[in-house]
């Protein structure tokens, strides 16, 4: 009986070796924001369950979201949501077969970041002005 040989497999280049590019950064960021939203939605679930539980629980939860830490979390969540949404729209454009050229790719990646910040600020300005 001969033992199975385990030859060392070639290792592909990974994050520490590649030079960071806009498209790569925004790709990593798309997954990171998706993961943040994945866990962050638990806060919305808690808020809704508190609403269904009654005024006492609700007031405690509502107080937290109105506190400086709560507002900071909501502000961060808004930005992460906008970034993931714009990143998703970028993926739709690619799915339809457009925006594959170098300049377009980098332009869209930059747009994702800039527009997500702009949208977040716009939402908070509007929310504080009208509500």
């Amino acid at each position: 009986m001969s033992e199975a040989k385990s030859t060392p497999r070639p290792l592909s280049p990974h994050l520490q070796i590649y030079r960071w590019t806009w498209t790569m950064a925004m790709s990593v960021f798309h997954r990171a924001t998706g993961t943040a939203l994945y866990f962050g939605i638990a806060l919305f679930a808690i808020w809704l369950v508190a609403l269904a539980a009654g005024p006492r629980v609700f007031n405690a939860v509502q107080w937290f979201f109105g506190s400086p830490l709560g507002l900071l979390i909501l502000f961060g969540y808004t930005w992460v949501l906008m970034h993931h949404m714009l990143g998703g729209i970028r993926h739709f454009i690619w799915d339809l077969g457009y925006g594959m050229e170098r300049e377009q790719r980098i332009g869209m990646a930059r747009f994702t970041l800039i527009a997500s910040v702009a949208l977040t600020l716009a939402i908070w300005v509007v929310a504080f002005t009208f509500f």
Partner: protein
Amino acid sequence: MADKNVSMRTPLSRVKGLGAAGHGVEHWWVQRLTAVANVPLLIAFVIIVAALAGSNYARALAIVSHPLIAIILLLAVISVVNHMRLGMQVIIEDYVQDNGWRIVAVVANNFYTAVIGAACVFAILKVSLGRILL
């Protein structure tokens, strides 16, 4: 012309195109479908949450239990929960190398998203059903 196809796959299998996993492009397709649905639903969601900010109990109850708001929130929760379940599964399958842990993580992903979905749907229905604004 003689049939030169020596594949083990039956003609039916090729026509269905569901592949080895038996799901075909379902995962990819539902990920896109829910992504398309998420765009308008989450724009509405952001507006609703902005309106809810700083509300007292009565006002929050009145907003969430309004039929139009409740329906939008329910659709958003269903679409988002499915979207995030599929997205997290891809991340797990990409990064968790150990077979056992990968299965544990995929199961945990399904449980977590089901709990979030059930909690949100139940809470929205509980504050909405039977509340008629006179």
